[in-house]
């Protein structure tokens, strides 16, 4: 019995949800819902508790990094991939977020899904997701991380397509998986390259080995740069960045708790996590960093613009998620990994809350998701509306809500970064403005104003406490979640940064240095600017949607092309369909299969066969049955034999003998 029992059997943390999933999957079909609920909640809850205990022990042990190899999973030649788990501060954040938020959402789901068919299936999938997500964040090497990576993809596939009777749902699930696969393609190649370069994929050894290298200069595509970019390709897939973000909006086909857990709080942040986890590699490659920053920034802005006009409440949230993830990458890209993770955490809180609240709204509306058909719900479902309002304030970046601090940290860091900092910062602000605008648009459209639905048909009702409870908890978190960074505004330390310092050592130092360099005023100024923009955004939203509700349609009419463009999400899906999907299908069907395979290769083979048959028929017809012809054949044969014997090369002498 070691002094840290749980820490030394860390596997139990992921294993519990797996057990829950297996139990529910195998036996749940015949069980009443309450057993299923019990299994699911207890398994995830326990795993949360164990996680807490493990964290406690980890800090108790006081070591920078806890790492343990449980068993070898793949071994070939000098390659070894083990079932190795590790724990450090970064892991702590992730694990707690995953298990904690996950658990809350489980509880929420018990209420939300209560009347759905396939209840057991749902929770089995959800637990499975928890398992893979925990593997992802606990993994001590890239291969095991990849297990979680693919696994969460799978579970998201399953959960998005949970209502498999709906074609749109199963389509969305398939799309999610395949798009992720495209990212994974890059991720795998990245791993291969790393292994080729360093001969290992263990975080510890690999990162120490990197230390021996000198960084790739800006614009130089050395091993590290390529490796980072490949890894980042995976990240774009998983975290829905340009150009692979397309699956996330569709993913809203899944039940809302799923959207909250997977497509807001946890899975989609995996990409950010990976980048943060491999920050050493990235810091060694400014090029890659820049790429990350640009992609993040662009995505943030791009998604925000789309979010402006979406009418489906979940779609709006989806695009805002994409946009927020963009922020996180922006943070990583400018070297402020701490800020990135910080935002990741706060985002997990308020975005989960947003989704859950939205779910509660939908629940209240009896499945209605179109905001134009809502309105005036504020009075009817107070808890929901207030919690959602908190979350909105948080995401809009209104102090003292959590979002403000994290977003501010990011904007500040981007402003600081020497490569194109101003531009990045500018776009960041703009995005903040848009975010504030469309989020309050959502709020106003949903909760205030006149009801735009038939009150007789729809009986709006507040959700059960099993759903509201999590909302409240998350609301609290969304408020206080950012206060770690509060002291920085009074020259105090950034607790969160210090906490993560052991992990982001180098990078953090850099950030610190920057902070020192930057005058404190500047920081305050920037914070103020950010706050201002947020307010402006809110103001516009208020002006447009509450003061004069005609306005939106006028605007839409006045700038029709832009509006339609945004409404159709820049036609990216259509573009992909036209440029990739359909050509590929056409090619495979008509060229590869019908033409090359059937006609070409098989045709040739059969052609040979038929040719042989034809010749055979010829031979057959030489059998005229007429003795005289046969005699001629014999004579012909005689001549052949004579000719061969006399005139074949080697017998030429005799020819001359004849003619002479």
């Amino acid at each position: 019995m070691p002094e840290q029992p749980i820490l030394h059997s860390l596997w139990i943390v992921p294993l519990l949800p797996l057990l829950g999933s297996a139990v529910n999957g195998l036996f749940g079909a015949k069980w009443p819902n309450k057993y299923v609920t019990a299994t699911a909640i207890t398994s995830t809850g326990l795993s949360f508790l164990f996680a807490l205990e493990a964290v406690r022990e980890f800090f108790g042990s006081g070591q920078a990094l806890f790492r343990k190899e449980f068993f070898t999973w793949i071994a070939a030649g000098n390659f070894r991939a083990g079932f190795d788990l590790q724990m450090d501060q970064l892991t702590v954040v992730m694990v707690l977020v995953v298990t904690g938020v996950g658990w809350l959402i489980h509880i929420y789901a018990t209420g939300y899904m209560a009347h759905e068919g396939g209840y057991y299936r749902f929770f089995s999938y959800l637990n499975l997701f928890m398992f893979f997500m925990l593997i992802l964040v606990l993994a001590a090497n890239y291969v095991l991380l990849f297990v979680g990576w693919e696994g969460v993809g799978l579970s998201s596939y399953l959960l998005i397509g949970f209502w498999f009777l709906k074609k749109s749902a199963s389509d969305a699930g398939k799309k999610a998986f395949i798009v992720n696969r495209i990212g994974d393609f890059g991720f795998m190649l990245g791993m291969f390259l790393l292994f080729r370069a360093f001969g290992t994929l263990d975080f510890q050894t690999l990162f120490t080995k990197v230390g021996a290298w000198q960084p790739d200069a800006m614009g130089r595509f050395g091993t590290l740069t390529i490796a980072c970019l490949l890894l980042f390709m995976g990240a774009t897939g998983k975290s829905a960045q340009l150009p692979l973000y397309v699956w996330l909006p569709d993913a809203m086909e899944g039940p809302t708790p799923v959207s909250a857990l997977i497509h807001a709080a946890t899975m989609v942040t995996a990409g950010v996590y990976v980048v943060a986890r491999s920050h050493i590699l990235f810091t060694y490659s400014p090029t890659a960093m820049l790429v990350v920053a640009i992609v993040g920034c662009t995505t943030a802005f791009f998604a925000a613009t789309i979010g402006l006009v979406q009418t489906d409440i979940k779609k709006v949230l989806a695009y805002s998620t994409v946009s927020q993830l963009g922020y996180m990458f922006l943070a990583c890209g400018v070297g402020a990994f701490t800020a990135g993770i910080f935002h990741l955490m706060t985002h997990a809180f308020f975005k989960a809350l947003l989704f859950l609240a939205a779910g509660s709204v939908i629940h209240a509306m009896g499945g209605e998701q179109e905001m134009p058909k809502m309105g005036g719900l504020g009075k009817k479902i107070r808890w929901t509306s207030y919690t959602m309002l908190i979350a909105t304030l948080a995401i809009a970046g209104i102090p003292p809500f959590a979002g403000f601090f994290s977003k501010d940290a990011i904007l500040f860091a981007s402003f600081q970064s020497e490569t194109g900092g101003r531009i990045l910062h500018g776009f960041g602000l703009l995005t903040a403005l848009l975010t504030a605008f469309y989020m309050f648009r959502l709020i106003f459209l949903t909760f205030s104003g006149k009801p735009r639905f038939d009150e007789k048909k729809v009986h709006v009702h507040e959700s059960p406490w099993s759903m509201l409870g999590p909302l409240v908890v998350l609301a609290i978190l969304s408020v206080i979640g950012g206060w770690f960074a509060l002291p920085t505004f009074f020259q105090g330390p950034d607790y969160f940064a210090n906490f993560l310092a052991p992990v982001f050592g180098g990078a953090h130092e850099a950030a610190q240095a920057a902070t020192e360099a930057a005058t404190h005023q500047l920081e305050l100024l920037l914070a103020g600017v950010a706050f201002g923009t947020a307010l402006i955004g809110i103001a516009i939203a208020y002006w447009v949607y509450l003061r004069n509700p005609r306005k939106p349609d006028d605007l839409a009419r006045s700038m029709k092309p832009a509006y339609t463009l945004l409404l159709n999400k820049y036609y990216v899906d259509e573009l992909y369909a036209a440029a990739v999907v359909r050509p590929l299908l056409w090619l495979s069907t008509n060229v590869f299969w019908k033409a090359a395979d059937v006609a070409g290769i098989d045709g040739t083979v059969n052609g040979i066969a038929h040719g042989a048959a034809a010749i055979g028929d010829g031979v057959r017809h030489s059998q005229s049955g007429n003795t005289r012809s046969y005699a001629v054949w014999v004579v012909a044969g005689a001549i052949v034999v004579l000719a061969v014997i006399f005139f074949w090369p080697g017998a030429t002498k005799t020819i001359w003998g004849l003619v002479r």
Partner: protein
Amino acid sequence: MFPQAIDLQRVLPELIWCGFGVLVMLLQPFVRSRQFFTFVALLGSLAGTVAAFTSFVHGGPGFFGLVQSDAFSFFFRLLVGTVSFLVVLAAGPYLDREKLPIAEFYALLFFATAGMGVLASAQELLTGFIGLEMSSISSYVLAGYRRDSLKSSESAMKYFLLGSFATAFFLYGIALVYGATGTTLLGKMAEANVATTGTLLKLGLAMILIGLGFKVAAAPFQVWTPDVYEGAPTPVTALLSAGPKAAAFALLLRIFATVPAATQYWFWAFWLLAALTMFAGNLGALVQTNIKRLLAYSSIAHAGYILVAFAAVTSMAQGGSAEAAPAYAAVLFYLLSYALVKLGAFTIVSQLGGFGEKNLSLDDYAGLSQRQPFVAAMLSIYLLSLLGLPVTAGFFGKFYIFKAAVNSHLISLAVLMAINSVIGAYYYLRVIVVMYMREPSAEAAAAGPVAFPLAVNAVLLVTFVGTILFGVYPNPVINFILRPDLLGH
């Protein structure tokens, strides 16, 4: 006193066979019982076969070197003896079914066998010629044995006309060789000075090759084969495909084993004949729907394979006969395996043919595996052996020929042979497919299984066991035919 006993002993099998032939003829007017004749015939062919042993034990040249009783002739005597024995077994029921006179058949069979024996042991061209004629003329008659069948008589006519046509070539060849070398003794020919008499000898040998090429149905002399095989009574077809062919090959082999000039001149001819014959046989068989005809074509193809080995022999024999030993072995073993298989297959065909040989088309074999599983299995085994699949004698036969060909660097020929065996696979499979993968026709199912009398089953058993045995354990045969004194020196 001449001839000495030893001379007689060295041709004992032939004497016995001829003797039995005469005996049967003499008994024919007095005995009515058909079984009796069958018994005598079995006895005779067996006796001759056994006698082959004694004449092998007291081996050596006989009649001033006209004949040579050695391992080689022993092997072929044994082969033709067994063949005739099996043919007797198979023919008995057939003749009863077709209501054909039996004694004459056996007598002719005996003389034919004797002729083959002579061919196998002849060491002198004219003796060989006589042997050839004995076997040929008797087979002409046998081919036309079903007198009132148009097909049978026609096949007899074609066989006879073309056969004697080819014989004339053969004979002319002998004459020219005689003129060139002043002798017809193969042994003496070896000493003949090729340089002075080159052209004439070459022409003579070419003519001989033509004559024998006809007998072994090498393309383009193969034209007669399908017609004759189809028309002749099936047991006779079995005999034709197994016996005379083997005997003719024996003479061919002996000639250029002993006459260096032949080895020297014949190589390319064999190369070409082999290629042509393989393709003619296999391609022709592709489109056949009459099983007898199909097998006829396949036997052409197999003649082609054997000729490949001949080409190998010729190209190896440059380096002395010892070099060529494996190739000889290949030829001999192939002839053995082939004879067994063809006998078995044709026996089944003759039995399934029914009265007047009506059911010969592939369609009559549809779903045979369900009507008569064992017969179908047997036939499939034979076909697979012809195809050259493992654990059948045919596999080793083909393997040895490939080996011979590759040994003598005839890669091109080997590849051609490979291609051909694939083509061959197609039509052999076709028969198997029909038997196993198609449902029997209504009337066939109604007719029920054809009875297989004991004698026929005996034939099948022998051929089957032989095929499998030599397919798993060819050692005894191989060891025997690989002996250095195969050709008695």
